[in-house]
């Protein structure tokens, strides 16, 4: 082999190596986009729902309000809505037998009776009149309208039969089927029916957990970091604490779930499935992470600050509390926010302390049973209905949105208040 040939070979190897590096990065970036694309393409439709314009006859006789001249809200609330809703639902399309009647009714969501009732409560003027109301369609019709169900497969493999498809086409032609912003997804609790299931409960549950996590972990982590960075004598106890914190930061999150189950629920008897226990468990999990971040930012404060304070007669505690900690605040804050973002996305420990319960009501205090956003994602992704797939993706979009906001907040806090020494 001549010199030129060898050189050429070496340069080819160089180029190959470089290309492999680029390729590795390209693959990683490709995965990021694939993941986001998958989530966003399936999830965006969950923010809208399909409605069917239905004629509802608020007949006083059917409502059993005939004898009342001017019924007030209370009387309307206690009126008999069965006949009205039945007539409205079955009046969507003419049918010939009981089977078909059921098919017609199943085009509306399980919640349509309540929707009709709420309409009258909000618009008492409609009493005695025939009005057109946009009622939420069932999950199957919703998915069909959004194009998630193929139509050209045999009838027995479809969720909607030929008769129902026929009604759908008919209603579509009349312009009665609309796509509107879904009031359920963001503002209601979980449900077995995908079309009326929402994430409000999970959002509130996550919010409570994160707040509790913040209240517990931030002060403790900051004080621990101050002790280890500023006060700790160099001895075996300090060494043990330090090794312990570093190891704890790498313990799998599910182990903290076992700790929560065994200690918080088992020994201390705290209420199961609640955001309170979830928050405490998450705070134990994020504590080491936040301690490490706080220590790094305390370390970044130059010694001259401390020496200056000590020189004018401040005590050690005054030096630390009046000068070092305030100067390290941007770093500690952003570290805390990043730790909380990690806690927000955490699922496994919450599964073990029972935050996977099916909770319809939106929790109002941290001791109510609740779920959290990631757990809701897990729960819905295990459900069989097609409608929950888009809900899952949409919940992921929300969760990622919250995480992006928190991380940008952390970056902002650091950049805004950071000082160059």
């Amino acid at each position, binding site marked *: 082999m001549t010199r030129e040939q060898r050189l050429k070979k070496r340069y080819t190897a160089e180029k190959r190596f470089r290309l492999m590096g680029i390729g590795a990065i390209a693959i990683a970036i490709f995965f990021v986009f694939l993941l986001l694309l998958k989530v966003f393409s399936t999830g965006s439709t969950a923010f809208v729902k399909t409605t069917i314009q239905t004629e509802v006859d608020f007949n006083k006789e059917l409502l059993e309000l005939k004898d009342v001249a001017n019924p007030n809200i209370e009387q309307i609330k206690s009126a008999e809505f069965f006949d009205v809703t039945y007539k409205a639902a079955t009046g969507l399309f003419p049918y010939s037998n009981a089977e078909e009647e059921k098919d017609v009714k199943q085009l509306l969501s399980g919640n349509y009776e309540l929707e009709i009732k709420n309409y009258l409560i909000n618009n008492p003027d409609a009493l005695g009149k025939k009005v057109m109301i946009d009622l939420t369609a069932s999950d199957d019709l919703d998915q069909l309208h959004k194009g998630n169900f193929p139509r050209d497969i045999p009838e027995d493999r479809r969720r909607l039969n030929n008769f129902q498809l026929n009604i759908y086409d008919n209603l579509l032609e009349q312009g009665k089927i609309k796509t509107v912003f879904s009031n359920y997804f963001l503002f209601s609790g979980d449900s077995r029916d995908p079309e009326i299931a929402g994430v409000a409960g999970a959002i509130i549950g996550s919010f409570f957990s994160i707040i509790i996590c913040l209240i517990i972990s931030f002060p403790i982590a900051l004080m621990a970091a101050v*002790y280890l960075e500023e006060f700790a004598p160099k001895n075996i106890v300090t060494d043990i604490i330090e090794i312990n*914190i570093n190891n704890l930061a790498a*313990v799998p*999150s599910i*182990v903290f779930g076992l700790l929560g189950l065994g200690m918080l629920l088992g020994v201390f008897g705290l209420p199961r499935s609640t955001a309170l226990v979830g928050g405490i468990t998450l705070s134990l999990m994020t504590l080491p992470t936040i301690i490490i971040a706080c220590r790094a930012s305390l370390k970044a404060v130059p010694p001259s600050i401390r020496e200056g304070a000590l020189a004018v007669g401040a005590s*050690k505690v005054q030096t630390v509390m009046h000068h070092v900690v305030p100067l390290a605040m941007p770093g500690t804050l952003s570290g805390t926010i990043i730790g909380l973002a990690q806690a927000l996305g955490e699922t496994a420990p919450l599964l*073990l302390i029972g935050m996977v319960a099916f909770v319809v009501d939106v929790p109002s205090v941290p001791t109510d049973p609740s779920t959290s956003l990631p757990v809701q994602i897990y729960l819905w992704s295990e459900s069989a209905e097609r409608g929950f797939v888009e809900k899952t993706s949409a919940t*992921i979009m929300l969760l990622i949105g919250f995480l992006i906001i928190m991380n940008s907040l952390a970056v902002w806090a650091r950049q805004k208040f950071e000082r160059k020494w």
Partner: protein
Amino acid sequence: MNSILLATLVLFAISSFYFGRSKIKKVALVRSIEPKALPKFYGYYQALWCSIPAFLIISFWTFFEPIILKNLIESRIQSMSLNELSKDELNLIYSQIVSFSQGTFTGQISNGIKSGVETYQSLLSVSQGAKIVLFFCAIIIASLFSFNQINKNVHARDSVEKIFTIILFLSSAAAILTTIGIIVSLLFETIQFFTKINPLDFFFGLNWSPQKAFMSDPANMTAQEAKDLREAFGAVPLFAGTAFIAFIAMCVAVPIGLYSGIYLAEYASNKQRKWGKPIIEILAGVPTVVYGFFAALTVGPFFRIIGENLGINVSSESALAAGLVMGVMIIPFVSSLSDDVINAVPQSLREGSYALGATKSETIKKVVFPAALPGIVGSILLAVSRAIGETMIVVMAAGLAANLTINPLEATTTITTQIVMILVGDQEFTSAKTQAAFALGLTLFVLTLILNFIALRIVNKYREKYD
């Protein structure tokens, strides 16, 4: 009850602060002496003395009152009842007593429980009374003591700062408490588990089927049941599945992560670094449940369709799908850690190599990489420990059946999956199944602890070498 006491305490503390502050001024004025510290420190001094003992009493009561009451009541129930009661029955009776006396119990209760309720309430009122008396005694005695000290013009700042330092120390000890809590709660259940199941059967048994293990009374268990129980908790398939999925994940993460780390550290321009690094780190910020969703709904079915087209039977929950997605999750971990260790290699090594005429890739392969190797090995070990402990991806995508297989296209299960499967839903603490989950948890904890310990040591040692 506690909230009222705490509110009282806060009020006392605040007024103590003002009291202490004005007291020292008066003392200084009357005796015309110089206070040894600023007046506000005497305020803090008085407030701390007033609140800390009383607060300790409240905390002590909150933690130990239920436990002591429970033991007292249970021993009384035990002595009252004719036959020996099991722990579960005692627990049930006790919780009925508690919920009835709190007014949350609906339904009929027997006379025995009614008398239990009476005992419980009388004990409770004694304990609450004792708590309140002690609480106020503590406030009064401690306040008088500190009042006396202020009169003597002690150095208040020193004392306050000492207490402050102690509080700081206690916070940093919280991490130790967490570790102790983990070990105690895991060990406690695990030991009970190992009294029922031989540890050898657990660590070396080849068959995992906890659903078969119905714990009937150990005394009159048939031979078949005993055999079933012994063979239900062989954890080898779980260890193998965990190792297998972690191996697949590392096959994905190590090459991609390492190459991108090398590229970012050695080749990338500033602009490429500025864009590439954060995008890769998005992968680290995505919650694991999202990866699980991705694996279960996109990657798994994708492999199955490919398999169908090739005529291979691929289960929709496969080790391959879970491992692949887990690998993607770990890429940023490996890449940023190896980026760091490569950056820590001194520039002089590279320049020496260039001076000998080596190309960039030759320098990286022959000089930088060997120099960074210990750090890279350390970071890979950290990544392995993360893969072993990862839960959501495997729960959602790897399957539940404990197959002892090395076929990546079949469903496999892992330690973490089984912990979740056993503990989600209702469980009773005494059943062998629940305790098995804790035994698995302890195994996982020890395993990751060893890996982390080794990895951190390697990384730190390596860092010191070039500092």
